């Protein structure tokens, strides 16, 4: 990283700005989360009253934005060396795979296979 005094001053301002942005995003998440009967789903008519799916999705999108800000600015990923991106590429693949595992909650091949075998004998 460049580290001249001027650069550092610029960074300092940027860190404060991002900090306030993160505070703002947190407040926004709170509003989406605690307003029980008035919410995104109802405004845009793709959900129902009460905090539910659409609100959850909005809340998670805000969380992702916040996480990106922390990673890019505070953790300096916006200008890092190639090797770190390579390491993180693998991490991302595995993390996505871990999340994809939950699809088994809806579709269980083992259970289906057993049911198939059972049906052959009944």
């Amino acid at each position: 990283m460049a580290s001249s005094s001027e650069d550092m001053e610029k960074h300092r301002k940027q860190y404060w700005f991002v900090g306030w942005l993160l505070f703002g995003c947190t407040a926004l998440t709170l509003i989406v989360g605690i307003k029980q009967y008035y919410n995104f789903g109802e405004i845009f008519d793709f959900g129902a009253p009460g905090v539910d799916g659409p609100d959850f999705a909005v809340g998670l999108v805000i969380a992702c934005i916040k996480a990106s800000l922390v990673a890019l600015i505070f953790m300096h990923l916006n200008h890092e060396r190639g090797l770190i991106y390579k390491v993180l590429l693998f991490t991302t693949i595995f993390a996505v795979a871990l999340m994809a595992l939950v699809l088994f909650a809806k579709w269980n091949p083992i259970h289906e296979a057993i049911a198939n075998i059972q049906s052959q004998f009944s």
Partner: protein
Amino acid sequence: MEIPYEVTARRDTGLYNAKIGIWLFLASEVMLFGGLFSAYVFLRVGVDPAQGDLPWPTSVQKVWIGFANTLVLIASSVFVVLSWVELKQRNWRKFQFWMGLVIACAATFMVLKSIEYKAKFTHTGIVLTDGSVIEGEVIGKTNRIEFEADSVTVNLLGGVPGFVGSVYKKEKEDGDHGEAHGGHGEVEWEKASLPGFTDASGQEVGNFKSWFLAERAKVKNTLAANKRAARNGKETVKVETSATLKAKEPFTVLADPHFTVAHGADSLAFRDVVTLNGKLVNDTVSIHLHEVDLQMVPFENQKDAQVWTLVNNEAAKTEWFEHRNHARDHIKPYYDKRGLDIPRKKLQDRHVSLQAVHLEGEGEHAGVIEVPRDAIRFISNHGPRYNVYYAIYFTMTGLHGLHVLGGALVLAYMMFFGKKLYLKNPEHMANRVEVGGLFWHFVDLVWIFLFPIMYLF
């Protein structure tokens, strides 16, 4: 020994060594928390109240604590990166100032967390046999079974955890301090010390533990001899695997129902196959009622839920239904406008079917109801055992809390003991702070996701 590339970058990686190290470590941390987040989703989609699971309790947390903790961690992230900037500019005092604020934030986080945990551990839920739930605060130790025993039947092949284990602990305590402490696990003892026991032949049993181990060894040896005899075609002897000890005077225990398997008016059986014989003294839980939760009772049957016979207070019942109907009426216009019925899921959810109850009364027992144990399907405080939500909540927030603690310790070390290195090689010190800061930001990043999924949605 001089470790290379602490300050200058390696030519092949383009990074100083600690940085590539911390990123590899953080990559493994992503896997760790990723697995837990995946487990969270699994558990959440798998909860099925129709199968008797408690519903996923959305917005059950004190949101202000989660919110405050989010702000505290974000602020600490800003402070840690500012402290690094100060080191880069060679301002040791200012570095210490910002780092001090980071440590203060970590301490605030942990204090708020402990307030939150304490509230969970002192709040109890009782699931009744029809699925209605009473929530509140148990009075005294009435969640335990109070039993006065005059004899004990032990199974000599049984395991140690359970009643026998608690006698071991009690004997050790009596030996160590000469007085009772109680409060551990399976059984609490009302009396200051254990009563003496006599065995079937009337002989006095000195130390319970030595007696139990000796008798157990005898039984095991006889069984082994029998096995050999049977193999050689010889006659075997009859083995008595249980023994009854008489207490010199009746003694009272408070048994944790999770460690018992059955009990009646004159006996109490523990899961290590020990039975106490005597009389049941108290088997009614007294609870200070805060809320009635009927999420597992069909909407139209809620008026006849089992909980109302226990509450036995018309005014409280009327108030509960007023609140429930008010909540239902609040969402009704949305569906009316679209010509739809309110979906069952909405009627059964926490915002409609869980309401506070205020019981009027005077004195010590104001607002307290008595719940007989045979009306209880399950009782627990809101600890990890209560339902899958609390299990994963304590696992994830607990692990995160340990990360906060570990990170704060490392950063505090740098703040208090880093001066020497700073004077020797300030850039090396700045790199250390950068690496510690990267870990700290990761801890913040995990919380950014924990806050919405645990507290809000």
